[in-house]
């Protein structure tokens, strides 16, 4: 192929130029033979970096990522992957401690493979992140590759283009017009075009009418928005402390440390409301009244903020969000009854507050009895004959108590295991401890969230939207008109919606006494 970059009009074009920057004439041999140059008009026929012939490594990477074909493939892969991931619940939603077992038990062989292929937590996986990052890189390179030449071309547009350029537009027209009629036609055309809010530039016997150029920048602005958005997402993983996603349960009245933060929080009151009347049983409101504390230098808790977490209205303090997500009623305490075995007489009751058992805690019962908690197993089990606790959750609480009469030096040991009769373990005992009831307490489930990328992400989204609106609600339309040697030439171009442009120009023509025959009415 001949690399001819100097146009017949005398203008020197950079290598890779398709249409002369000055007069718009096709430069490449293969373009010269084409009936229309619609394809070539997309970037005004400018040279782009990705199109250059001799390539080093960087050029190759550049070309790869600047290809829209590659972008489409990346988007398609992301789309399909995202769809597959939604078929079974993700690990976080399934909230299971043993995902491997969970998937194979619940979903059989499919679940097993879902887990094995890493699809059960795919949205956080390295390869999904890589896909998003590649789309991001592609967006940057692709946009840079095109927007700069496009910007230059549109800014330096010449009014007078070669008739060749005009006639090879997708919409074109020519008609012989007598010299003395020329002025009249030009006036009529400009008036009609101005009425349709075209901006008119006239130089000698040439007119360039243009409107909606902002539409051309739309895709780039929308891509910039997407880049900012993706950057925001990426930063959450890169900068420590930018992103926190934890959960906590907190009983009414309890004060707990907020996981992974310097704060403590107190649940003052947990309100659960239901609809009444015919809709009884349907929840109406969940609200936790909270006080947030921070430890001062001497270790005391100092309140810094109070407020409520309501579903859809999180509690906010600086970057921290506490989000109301769950409501439970939890076991707060166990009421126990101390009985004399022989007489079967109750000596009194005592309450064990499960959230607040100190070692060697002593409960006084009646007037002369003391019960001391020696051991506490929240999740009791026997392992090789020895008592252990399987976890710190209150699942099957068990205790060893020491029961002592006042003044007595050594009391007797007594087991209490929920759901079992432990009396048989200590047949010699004088006293027996029996279950007398439970005390329940409402417990609020909160999400603990910090997401410092949020402003970046939303700004990105907003910019993307502005770009989309610019690109889609405006259309870049240009009409070139030229009078040369007794012939009136007209060529028109739009970046989208050709039919609408045809219809518009047909109207313009009608008002100027030219039958353009662009649409049949």
């Amino acid at each position, binding site marked *: 192929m001949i690399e001819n970059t100097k146009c017949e009009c005398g203008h020197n074009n950079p290598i890779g130029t398709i249409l002369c920057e000055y007069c718009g004439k096709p430069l490449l041999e293969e373009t010269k033979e084409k009936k229309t140059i619609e394809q070539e008009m997309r970037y005004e026929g400018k040279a782009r970096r990705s199109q250059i012939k001799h390539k080093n490594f960087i050029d190759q990477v550049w070309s790869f990522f600047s290809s829209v074909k590659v972008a*489409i493939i990346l988007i398609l892969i*992301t789309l399909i992957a995202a769809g597959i991931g939604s078929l079974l619940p993700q690990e976080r939603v399934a909230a299971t401690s043993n995902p491997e077992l969970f998937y194979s038990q619940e979903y059989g062989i499919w679940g097993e493979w879902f887990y094995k292929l890493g699809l059960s937590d795919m949205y956080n996986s390295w390869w999904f992140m890589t896909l998003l990052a590649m789309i991001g890189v592609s967006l940057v390179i692709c946009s840079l590759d095109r927007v700069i030449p496009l910007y230059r071309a549109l800014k330096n547009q010449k009014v007078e283009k070669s008739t060749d350029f005009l006639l090879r537009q997708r919409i074109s027209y020519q008609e012989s017009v007598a010299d003395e009629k020329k002025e009249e036609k030009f006036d009529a055309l400009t008036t009609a075009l101005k009425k349709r809010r075209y901006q008119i530039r006239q130089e000698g016997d040439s007119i360039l009418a243009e409107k909606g150029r902002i539409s051309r920048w739309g895709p780039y602005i929308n891509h910039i928005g997407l880049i900012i958005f993706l950057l925001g997402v990426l930063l959450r993983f890169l900068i420590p402390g930018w992103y926190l996603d934890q959960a906590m349960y907190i009983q009414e009245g309890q004060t707990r440390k907020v996981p992974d933060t310097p704060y403590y929080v107190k649940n003052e009151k947990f309100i659960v409301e239901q609809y009444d009347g015919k*809709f009884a049983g*349907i929840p109406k409101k969940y609200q936790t009244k909270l006080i947030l504390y921070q430890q001062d230098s001497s270790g005391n808790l100092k309140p810094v903020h109070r407020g409520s977490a309501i579903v859809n209205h999180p509690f906010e303090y600086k970057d921290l969000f506490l989000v109301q997500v769950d409501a439970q009623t939890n076991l707060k305490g166990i009421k126990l009854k101390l009985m004399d075995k022989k007489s079967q007489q109750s000596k009194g009751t005592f309450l064990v507050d499960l959230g607040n058992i100190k070692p060697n805690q002593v409960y006084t019962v009646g007037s002369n009895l003391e019960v001391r908690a020696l051991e506490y197993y929240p999740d009791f089990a026997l392992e090789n004959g020895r008592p252990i606790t399987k976890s710190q959750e209150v699942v099957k609480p068990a205790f060893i108590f020491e029961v002592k009469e006042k003044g007595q030096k050594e009391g007797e040991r007594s087991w209490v295991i929920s759901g079992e009769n432990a009396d048989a373990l200590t047949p010699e005992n004088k006293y027996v401890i029996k279950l007398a009831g439970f005390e329940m307490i409402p417990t609020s489930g909160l*999400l603990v969230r910090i997401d410092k990328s949020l402003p970046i992400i939303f700004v990105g989204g*907003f910019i993307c939207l502005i770009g989309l609106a610019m690109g889609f609600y405006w259309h870049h339309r240009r009409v070139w008109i030229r009078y040369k040697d007794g012939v009136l030439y007209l060529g028109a171009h739009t970046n989208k919606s050709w039919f609408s442009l045809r219809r518009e120009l047909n109207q313009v023509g009608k008002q100027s006494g030219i039958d353009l025959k662009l649409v049949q009415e």
Partner: protein
Amino acid sequence: MEQLMENLLLCTFFLYLLSSVAFVMGIKGKKGEEPKQRERKWGNIAVGLAIIGVVFQIAFTITRIFISGHFPTSNMFEFTAFLCFTVVLSFIVLFFIYRTVVLGAFVMPLAVILLAYASVFPKDIQPLIPALQSHWLYIHVTVAALGSGAFAVGFAAGLVYLINQVGNKKSGKNAAYLEVTLVVVLMWVSFILSSFVSGALGYQAEITAQIEGKQVTQKFDLPPIFGPHEGKVVKMDSFLGQKEPLFEVPSWMKGQNAAKNVNSTFWGIITGLILYGLIRLFTKKRLTEILYPLVKKWNPELLDEISYRSIAIGFPIFTLGALIFAMIWAHEAWGRFWGWDPKEVWALITWLFYSVYLHLRLSRGWHGMKSSWLAVGGYVIIMFNQIVINMVISGLHSYA
């Protein structure tokens, strides 16, 4: 008040139906009549009916807000009815840009189908659970639905384009796929019809089963050919002498209404095929052939452009509603702007799909046939999200 609301909805339905008929009249052109004039006349009547229908639907919506105290987009009935509303609204906008009567002859029936489909779901008003008490939710749902409405018009225009191009072809892949697409639409319609017939006959069945540890009773409006896994019949009107479901759905189908949905799908497919068989038998024509005369004289470039234009108008709106507003709401409700909930994932898939459509069209020159197929495919994804994801893969968003 409730009676008024019912009546308003009924009026809306008939206005859309009449509008569809008027649009078809507009393109049916008799001999000896000036087609342009006929089109103009019937087009004006039809779009007028559609506009009055929209006004009635707005009145319906307002009445419902009065009764329930919240914007009606919080269950399948309300949301599907609203989707129908957005389709008509988008169509009216596009009609005033392009004035193509043929488009109305396809979009308005689609609106009628959507509204009828909405009525298959329970219409009773439910109070809002806390998770749904947010203004952002309404904003998000309504704007996303508006975007989908524009996509629906893009779909209809794509369909018209395809019929225009291959409707007279006896064979070929495109003709075959197009016929399948139309048969699927027919199945949808016949499911709705059979629901109405069954409802009018007062058919009822209740089957109870253990689902995820809870005893759930499913009410069937259509005779249960499929029942829940290990279900017990509470009551069942006999259907062709049959007193209990013929089949059980497999145990991995866990949705509360999984059996009911499988059953509905089954009825849709069977009655759809029967209806299709009858149509073929009596007209001796394929569906594409029946529709072809209605669309053959339209300029394909125009149809292609309308399809693209609808999607172009819908894309920013969909982005705003289904992604940006959704993120704002999710941030308030769950503290995370994105949770990879199935419904969210499918909104993202829809968006990515349409962005692929736009890129292919712009950079690879996918116009005409390919572009129209993508417009059809996009709407299939939307409907998949609306129907299958809502009712089968239950997530945080599921209504039913």
